[in-house]
């Protein structure tokens, strides 16, 4: 599941997946899940993108957000087989617009075993706030995306099953291990067979009604790798939809670890933001 960080960057992976498509042997469920997770959140050592977010409510009223997102993985490995690609991850989200949130920063240290650390820097109040990690399924800055859609949901949080294999997709169903901690009862994911990009994710509520849909709308090749450059999240209950456009995408730019610290909240790393 996800949206944010789909800048794909590893050529061998693509070739492996192509090979699979040719031999037509469906990988097992865990394999698909981890490949999709890898493609969605963990490709490359680091990455950067400029994001234009357009939030449209059910009355057609629009709001915009514009921000830069920086990502850095702790792990140097890209290996799926030994799950070597997993590991801690750091995100730095710097807001440009609307102008009243200019210079606002959202910093995340994604952990593997414990709750994530999140900070929010509010320049107008000159305030750095830790955000308690009790619930990741709250809105991300008023959009239809949840914080968890942005940072990635842990693969271990759900049970997975392969519902079916179509010409182009593996259709997976994910059921939460702790249903009380989430608002959905399960979600279905359409994973592209060749690229392992999750192209569509559908969330179902306790009545079995579909109420949230994430889509990948556009994939471009960046630095030789396929990258989702347009994505959307629709909330069928509120009638709201959020669309994100990624531009200026680049990978493996050598982001230093130190910029993902509290110190850089007040003094943004201007050089790395563009």
């Amino acid at each position, binding site marked *: 599941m996800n949206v944010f960080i789909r800048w794909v960057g590893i050529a061998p992976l693509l070739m492996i997946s192509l090979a699979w498509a040719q031999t037509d042997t469906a990988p097992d469920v865990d394999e698909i899940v981890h490949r999709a997770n890898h493609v969605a959140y963990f490709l490359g050592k680091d990455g950067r993108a*400029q994001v234009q977010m357009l939030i449209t*409510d*059910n*009355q057609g*009223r*629009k*709001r915009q957000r*514009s921000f830069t997102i920086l990502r850095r993985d702790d792990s140097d490995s890209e290996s799926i087989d030994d799950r070597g690609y997993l590991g801690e991850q750091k995100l730095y989200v710097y807001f*440009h*617009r*609307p*102008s*009243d*949130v*200019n210079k*606002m920063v959202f910093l995340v240290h994604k952990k593997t075993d414990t709750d994530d650390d999140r900070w*929010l820097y*509010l*320049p*107008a*109040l000159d*305030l*750095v*706030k*830790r*955000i*308690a990690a*009790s*619930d990741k*399924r*709250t*809105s*991300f*800055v*008023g*959009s239809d995306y949840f*914080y968890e859609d942005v940072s990635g949901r842990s693969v271990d949080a759900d049970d997975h099953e392969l519902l079916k294999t179509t010409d182009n997709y593996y259709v997976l169903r994910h059921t939460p291990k702790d249903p*009380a901690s989430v608002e959905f009862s399960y979600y279905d994911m359409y994973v592209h067979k060749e690229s392992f990009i999750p192209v569509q994710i559908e969330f179902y509520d*306790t*009545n079995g009604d579909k109420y949230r849909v994430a889509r990948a709308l556009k994939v471009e090749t960046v630095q030789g790798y396929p990258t989702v450059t347009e994505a959307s999240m629709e909330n069928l*209950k*509120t009638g*709201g939809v959020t669309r994100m456009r990624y*531009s*200026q995408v680049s990978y493996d730019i050598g982001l230093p670890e130190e910029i993902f610290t509290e110190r850089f909240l007040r003094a943004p790393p*201007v050089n790395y933001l*563009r």
Partner: protein
Amino acid sequence: MATKMLADRAVYFALNHPKSVARVMVWITLVLALVAVVPSFVDLPYLKPVTVDTDPENMLSREEPVRLFHDHNKDVFALSDIIVVGVVNEEHPQGVFNPDSLRRIYDLTEYAKTLTWPSAVDPDRQEGVVEVDMIAPSTVDNIEQGGPGTVNFSWLMATPPATEEAAIAIRERAQNIPFLNGTLVSEDGKAIALYLPITSKTLSYRISTALRDYVSDWDGADQVFITGLPVAEDTFGVEMFIQMAISAPLAMLTIFLLLWWFFKKLVLVVSPMIVAMVSSIVTMALLVISGNTIHIMSSMIPIFVMPIAVLDAIHILSEFFDRYPVHKDRRKTLQEVMHALFAPMLFTTLTTMAGFASLALTPIPPVQVFGVFVAIGVFTAWLLTILFIPAFVMLIPESKLEGYGHVGSEGEQDHTLLGRFLQAIGRGSTRRPGWVLALTLLLCGVSAYGITLIRINDNPTKWFDERHEIRIADRVLNEHFGGTYMAYLSLIPAAVDEKFEMETVLSELESRRKSAVQSGLSSGVYAQFEESVRSLAQRDVSQSDALEHLTGQVEEAMAEAGGDDYFAWDDLLLLLDGIRQRQEVFKQPETLIWMDALQNHLLANGHVGKINSLVDVVKTVHRELLLGSAEAFRIPDSSNAIGQTLITYQNSHRPQDLWHFVTPDYRHANLWLQLTSGDNQDMEAVIADLDRFLADNPAPYGIDAEWFGLTYINVVWQDKMVTGMLTSFLGSFAVVLLMMVVLFRSVLAGVLSMIPLTITVGLIYGIIGLIGKDYDMPVAILSALSLGLAVDYAIHFLARSKEAVARNGSWKAAIPHVFGEPARAITRNAIVLGAGFLPLLAAPLVPYQTVGVFIAAIILSAGLATLILMPALIQLVQKWLFANVEGERQ
């Protein structure tokens, strides 16, 4: 005399062809009833099924500005009508804040979420409870300190608590959030209220019934109360129809029994009943066929048509009862009776019709329909009375009438109690006219004083009897919570269409260009932008159009640009956005500080229990950002700080809640007021309070404040009702007076006939003022009824007096005759009708009780005024009044 001839011919026709008259009546009634009812079951061209409309909002036309404004703002702020479900526990020391009660409340919330159905109009859309906007412990966010330096958004009650301590912690958290304290959690901490927004208030009854069924097996300690204007209004609609089916027949039965007692012959007494029934059926059938909905007002049509329909028939029966023993021949008796009564009956009918038809002048559509159709019903009743009653009597074999009639026969020899009593009244009032007059003037004085005390007020919840569960729920919940009556205040800054400020843009551009060049961006993009700005300034564009145009241009350029140019364009977008944000009035500290003052002013008014707005959101989040300290519960100092507070709020589970209070462009805000009373006078007090505040505290940015919400709409239609009723009453008063002058061909007699009516209306409204009964919707309608009924007795009395004077030579000689049969007819009439409507008192709906009491009071008062005051006045003015009568005789 033309009318007399017409009368005689009509009566002769009925007497000669009784069977045809009866047959035609039955057929017309059946056909109309079928045409009205069948389209509800089968689709027919041009005909509509019976439609029921129980929405008091429809008292105002759909195009009424206040309704358009209300609907528009409901859309803008995504507001729904709200059902309030209160759960109170008086037994547990912590109220409902114990694991068992909270588990039930959690389950009830989950159940309420399922109360949606595919819409009947559009199966793709769901209707029912709006889940995303529900306010319940498990659906709202808690914002609080999550430890040092952290802020925490979490569901207030993600799952039901397991321990007493956890249950109490939920209360403490909720009470710390102004938005929830007094709204979700009662201030005494004992009760919880769920707010269920619904897609249409016409679903209120269905949803509240489902909720009541769901909680029916809860044990005694947790009591559930359901209220809110939508529930009151929709439930009233449902119960109204049940009442129609009980009250109207009960009234008919009472009238029937009294008539039977007065006139002995069952077979004769049936005829007025038939007239009443047929008139009601025909009227309602015509109402439906003409495509009108059955509304709260029009459902009362039968209740009004029935007494008026039997009125004339009672005069005929009474007269027939008294004269039959003289002739012992029904045909001859009828001819005589109808001849004597035709003119007064025609005129009483016309005046009654005028009274009701005048309601068509009010600006309230359902009242117009009501007035016009009651007038049609009255006319139908008259037609039936002069044709069907004689025909019906002719169909009774003469043998069955044997020994029928009044013992005393011709008036003056009446020795029954009633007869002697009436004679005494006649003698008394004509001998001491001065005393009567003085007493009347005294009454007028008291009435006038009473009228000054009238309190104009209404409240649909109070249409239910005190013991009704909605009234109980209303009382309990408004004691515990901020209030179950919703009103909203829309705030919009004055539309300013200022000219494009090129200089501002250019000067900001200059400073940005400098710092951009310093940080290594090229100045080419900035130069290109400057050119666009200058060329745009050549044209006559407004600031907002210019900003939009420039933003579009920059976005296009940015999409094409790569590398550093991308960031230069991005920098320019920030510049434009900064200028645009100065138009975001509701992010400016001065605006929010003013709103805060406005709220505090309104809260000082005892009727406003709670106000929720952007102000509370900003203050609460600001406080939690700053370590939860009480001093931080304030509006931040800059618009950027407000913007950042608001974006923090939007990191919650329900960011869309913000858009109930402000539009995303921050140029239109909304205050949600919870009132503890739905009384119009209380809403009016709040309105007046706001006006005072606005006068003393001019709004920044020329902000215009306007009310909407159901509680406010009720005030608007009440205003229209009161002024509308007054003009329509004055109008019909003038018309009736003119008719009287024409009928009696004398200004004096015309004026005289209006006196009992005037006294009655004055007295009724005087009493309403004195006893402190609110002047509400039913009371307003009654003025039309009193006009129609009260003048009738005077017409009969004056017409018969003139006749008696003509026959007996002088007023003095005529008095015993007048207080014979005519006085008896009036008295019987008054007793039958007055008593006939008392069963309405048993109804659990207050408007029915009001109508019952006041019809009885109007009839009694009009009867007394006619029998006591009229003779006294005639005594005083007889010289002028009977001048031509006696002249004619000579």
